[in-house]
């Protein structure tokens, strides 16, 4: 189907489309994503230090409550409709940090509420979590294999 060469009309249409297509501001998107993502991480760092300073957490163990707090904040912001605006403005800058995960969870919960609590909210809330778990586990597996190979072969044993 797709293997046939394009007809002259199709080529003409492609050119027409190219002429009218809006150019994506890639550089601007990258810079905005960098700064907004960085700001989110700065807030996360501040929360992490808060837990280290006032509670009995070390740098190693402070990660868990920090992540939980960041997700909680993102959920509140999503519920109030603020996070959508940040997402429109910053793109990947708001989706890549852990807050993007919280946003995806809560927004699908809001979206599917009309379908009922069990099949709607319960079934759709963790739709994204499935892909996070799958690709997270798989990439961790690949990284661990690469690390093991490097340590075993190039650095001579553990």
């Amino acid at each position, binding site marked *: 189907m797709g293997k046939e060469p394009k007809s002259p009309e199709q080529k003409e249409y492609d050119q027409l489309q190219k002429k009218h297509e809006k150019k994506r501001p890639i550089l601007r998107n990258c810079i905005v994503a960098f700064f907004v993502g960085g*700001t989110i991480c700065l*807030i996360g760092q*501040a929360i992490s*230090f*808060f837990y*280290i*300073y006032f509670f*009995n*957490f*070390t*740098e*190693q*163990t*402070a*990660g*868990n409550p920090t992540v939980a707090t960041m997700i909680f904040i993102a959920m509140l912001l999503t519920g109030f409709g*603020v996070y959508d*605006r940040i997402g429109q403005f910053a793109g990947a800058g708001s989706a890549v940090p852990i807050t993007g995960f919280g946003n995806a969870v809560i927004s699908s919960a809001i979206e599917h509420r009309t379908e009922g609590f069990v099949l709607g909210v319960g079934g759709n809330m963790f739709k994204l979590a499935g892909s996070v778990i799958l690709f997270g586990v798989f990439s961790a597996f690949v990284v661990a294999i690469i690390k093991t190979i490097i340590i075993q072969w190039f650095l001579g044993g553990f």
Partner: protein
Amino acid sequence: MKKYWIYIIGVCFIIIQLSGCSTVNRNENSLLSQTDPEPIAVKDEDIEKVKKIKDTVLSFDEIYETAVVLGKEDCLVAIKVHHLKRFRMKAIEKKLKKKLKEQFPKDKFTVSSDYKIFLESVRLKNRVEQENWSEEQKEKRLQEIIKLSQEQT
């Protein structure tokens, strides 16, 4: 829409500002500033030895600040490593531990680059100075910090 941004930026600004003011004691602000804490020893006669340990630790170029607590058998060394050298943190810790073991074979060293351990060592030092702690109290707190440093996620 515009108003939201002003609120968000304002809240962030206030949080950052407040996190700077939150410290009561200047010495406790070892996160943002260099405090160079004096080393402490549980037993008073060990004070010369603990100073030697501190000099050994600071002889490493990568380390710019250290808090040393010498107990009866254990010794806790909390270090701060230069930012760009933090990639090799594990290797530096290992090297430091090896060198300390060679120079002071009798003690059991715990080396940690964790900020929390450094902070708790500085707090211990302050409280020892202010409240005149006994040897048992110092040793007990030291053991608590060592236990904390071994905690995993």
